[in-house]
């Protein structure tokens, strides 16, 4: 679960939890598949100026998640859940001058979240999560075909959904 091979960013695939981040799914199992495509063709400097470097960087990720949610409730109606995300990724970094600089594809760094507590209320849904990314993707220091990051990541997060109307017809969500 990472923009693996991209050294200038964190490992979280941005945007993937932009909607419904606070809502705990129904009790039982849920399978989720997300296809994420990132394309970048500008390089920004320290102060935001576009640098005179031409080329492109792209990352394509297929995220397979299996989520389990308990039926029991505790801590004021919270339900416990856990999930694992097994991703496949393809990345490419190409310079207009030097051609292909790096690129790789295959099984990438996987994301395991053994602890999720979620509260679904009438006007509010909240989740708190702890997870970690394991460096299961291919990585070698001198290689040009890396798919993994080569390091572990501990990730603490929370999702909130605020229903702005009684009928839940409008919502603001954040993670």
């Amino acid at each position, binding site marked *: 679960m990472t923009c693996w091979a991209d050294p200038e960013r964190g490992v979280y695939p*941005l945007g993937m939890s932009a*909607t419904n981040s606070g809502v705990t*799914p129904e009790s039982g199992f*849920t399978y989720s*598949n*997300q296809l994420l495509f990132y394309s970048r063709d500008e*390089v920004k400097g320290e102060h935001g100026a576009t640098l005179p470097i031409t080329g492109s960087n792209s990352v394509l990720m297929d995220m397979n998640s299996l989520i389990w949610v308990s039926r029991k409730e505790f801590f004021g109606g919270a339900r416990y859940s856990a999930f694992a995300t097994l991703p496949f990724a393809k990345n490419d970094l190409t310079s207009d001058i030097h051609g292909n600089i790096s690129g790789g594809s295959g099984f990438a760094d996987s994301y395991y979240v053994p602890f999720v507590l979620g509260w679904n209320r009438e006007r509010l849904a909240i989740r708190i999560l702890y997870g970690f990314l394991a460096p299961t993707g291919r990585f070698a220091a001198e290689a040009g075909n890396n798919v993994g990051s080569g390091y572990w*990541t501990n990730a603490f997060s929370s999702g909130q959904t605020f229903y702005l109307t009684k009928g839940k017809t409008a919502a*603001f969500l*954040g993670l």
Partner: protein
Amino acid sequence: MYEFHTTQEGTRTHPGQTFDLDYSLMKTFTPTKAIALHVGLVGYEQRQITATTGQAVTPEESTQRYSVNALGAASNVTFPKRKVNFGLKFFEEFANRSTFQGFSFQASGSVSF
């Protein structure tokens, strides 16, 4: 999300900690009981909080902090009886610092059982 990274295998580079924020403002339409349509605005932010360090990282590189900003649109279709959901999102990045800048297209589907 707040990310704590360990040292990268083989390079001894220690990536800085990262803060991520995804968000949206969605409106729901329910033309029938069997279907719900959600449309709205989405965005994401990312900030490097602490320095990247290591033998291969220069002091100048270590002082830099990447930042990412994006806004876009999203739509989701939910079929409550079938416990199935499909979604599409598009993000355009702007005013990034110390990183690449571009766009993202995301498609998703889920089923509960």
